[in-house]
Structure formats: C-alpha cells, structure tokens
C-alpha cells in the first residue's frame, strides 16, 4: 500500500494496517472477555452442586463473575489515544509535513487524518464493551434463574 494516497490517515501511512491492528486488538479483548460467561456458568453450577450436597453456599454476584473481562476494551480505547498521538507525530517524522498539513484550506483535514481511525476504534470498543456487558449480564441472570429453579426443585 506504500505510496497510495489513502484517507483518513496521514498521507503515506497505512490505513489498512491501522484498521487491521485495531480489529485484532478488539478480537483479542473479545476472546479474553469470553472468560466471564464461562465463569458465570461454572459459579452457578458450583452453587447447584453445593445445594445438592447440602453444604453452605453463597450466590455469585454479577460484578464478581464479570471481573476484569471487559477491562481490555478500556485498554483498546487507551491504545486509540496513543494511536492518535502517533498519527500527529508521524507528520514530523522524516520531514515537517505538519507545515503543509497546517496550511491546508480545510482546517479539519489533518485532525480527520489523525483522529478518524482512533475515534472509530474507540467507539467500536465502547459499543462492543456495552453490548457484551448487557449480553453477559443477561447470561448471568439466565444462569441464576436456572440454578434457582434447580435448587427449588430439590
């Protein structure tokens, strides 16, 4: 892709690579977050087993089972802030292209180059994190209700 003019990243930078890396980071934190529903399932299974055995048990909490599963998305958002800074600094790498960028008739142009991918990445991260939170929350209550139903039938 070298040499191809591609917006909205600083000219000469690889937008494909920035988007691919962002997608990979989101994929990785998504995989990490899958630990949460597994933990919820295991925790409620343990509760049912304890009830079956007649031993004492405490019901797991949503925050306890969710743990750090969604923290990775905050990490991606932080990474997007770093990417934005890197994009701005790239205009000073190897030349002072920032002089040209700053005297373009469209004052927002360089900000669009530098912030477009980071903003899209951060938004995607926030939306995915929110969607997974509600999904995992729903799964937590589904497991709870299922476990309570089993315990009630004992």
């Amino acid at each position, binding site marked *: 892709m070298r040499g191809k003019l591609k917006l909205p990243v600083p*000219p000469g930078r690889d937008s494909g690579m920035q988007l691919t890396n962002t997608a990979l980071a989101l994929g990785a934190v998504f995989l990490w977050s899958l630990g949460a529903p597994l933990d919820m399932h295991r925790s409620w299974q343990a509760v049912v087993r304890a009830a079956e055995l007649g031993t004492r048990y405490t019901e797991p909490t949503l925050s306890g089972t969710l743990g750090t599963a969604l923290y990775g998305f905050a990490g991606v958002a932080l990474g997007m802030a770093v990417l934005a800074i890197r994009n701005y600094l790239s205009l000073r790498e190897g030349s002072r*292209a920032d*002089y040209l960028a*700053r*005297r373009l008739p469209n*004052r927002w142009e360089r900000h669009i180059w530098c912030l477009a991918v980071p903003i899209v990445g951060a938004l995607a991260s926030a939306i995915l994190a929110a969607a997974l939170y509600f999904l995992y929350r729903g799964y937590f209550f589904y497991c709870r209700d299922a476990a309570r139903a089993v315990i009630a039938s004992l």
Partner: protein
Amino acid sequence: MLELKDVKKSYGWKRALDGVSLTVAPGEIVGLFGENGAGKTTLMKCALGLLGFGGKVTLDGEPVTRRNIARLSFATCEHSFFPNLPAESHRDFYRAHFPKWRDKRYTALTEFFDLPRHTAAGRLSTGQQNQLEVILALCQGADYILMDEPFAGNDVFNREDFYKVFLGILEPEEAVLISTHLIAEVENFISRAVLIRGGKILGDTRVSDLEDRGETLLGYVKSSYGYRPGRVADALDRLSGEEDGQK
C-alpha cells in the same frame, strides 16, 4: 500585496522578531538575507501562520486565514512533503487540495529535473528532495511563494538550472520571498534585497539601485552588517602570535 506590520515573536526570553514590517508586492522576487538566527525562518513561519505572533500579517488587506491561505506556498529546507509518498502522489494530493494547482508546470519541472515519480520522497537524494519541495511550492498555484533556504544541499549546476527555470516560468504576478545564504548566486535573479539582523530589518533595497550605485549585493550585505574585511587576517595574526609566544 503581502504585508507584515510590526510583527513580534519571542521564544521564551529570546526575541526572534522585533517589530518587523515588510511588504512584498505582486511580481517581486525578494531575497531575505541574514546570519543564522537572524529571524528569517521565523518571519516566514509567522507570515504563514505556523507560529503565533504579535502584529499583523495581511494579504491584500485581509488577514491570512483558511480562506486565503492557498495564496501562499512554502518551500522549506526542513521539507514539508510526505516522506512516504512519491512525487506522483504528491501531485494528486496537491491537485485535490489546492484548486489553482499548476499541473502543466509540475509535469514540465519534474521532467526537466528528471525527478523519479514513483519513489517515496523520503528515499530521494537531498538534492532531489529539495527539488520536489521547491517544485511543489511553485506549482501550488500560490500568488506568494515563500522559500526558506530551498537549495541547501543542491550542487551549483543544479542551483543555476533552478534560477534560470525560475525566471522562465514565473508569471508576472507571482511573487517570491526567498531566504538564502547564497547571496552572490541570487544577485541576478532577485529584484529586491531585505536584510534582517537580530529580528529587525537592517536594510531594504532594490537590486537595480545597487547596480546604479555600482555596488554588488554581497558588498551591500557586508557593509550593512558591518563586516570587517581584515577580521580574518587579524584573528590569524593573533593566533599565530599566541603560538609563537608558547614556544
């Protein structure tokens, strides 16, 4: 008319420009001369709005804003191209951003200087990078072309070619403000010389007036700067005297 009125700029405690007033009229080719740190680069960057400053810079009476910034172009020895983009992509970029882009001129200049069109600008030789920088500034379609030591690193033949090309291609209304240390080389090419020292305008003269007085540009610069011709001989005498004393 590009006009700087009482422009002041400080870097911390150091005053880089101390109330500089200067006008550049359409069609003028103005040489800006001064020692390192005199304020030449700062003056140009203030004119372009790249630095904050006190005072006023106007273009035909209007402040320089995004509406008229395209009337100014800039070639700097620091280079303002995108190092990962080849010349051809720079053409596309400029064409997309500057409506008055001079495509014919660009083609002619890149062909004349045999500039590689598909090599990333950052991989060109320093001389070629300077050429690309200057060509882009000349082709942007600006009325006022600001050049800050654009030929630092180019060989003498290449520079000569550029001066000739300059004179051949510039439209009558295009103005150039060029800062350089190559005073003798640009003498036949500029119409006016402005001297700057310690952030103040030290001298401003038409080259034709110098010719009428039988003075050379280099002589004018030296006399304005208070250059003492015997300075080097004095220093060498002193140095050799010290060494003799040590023996």
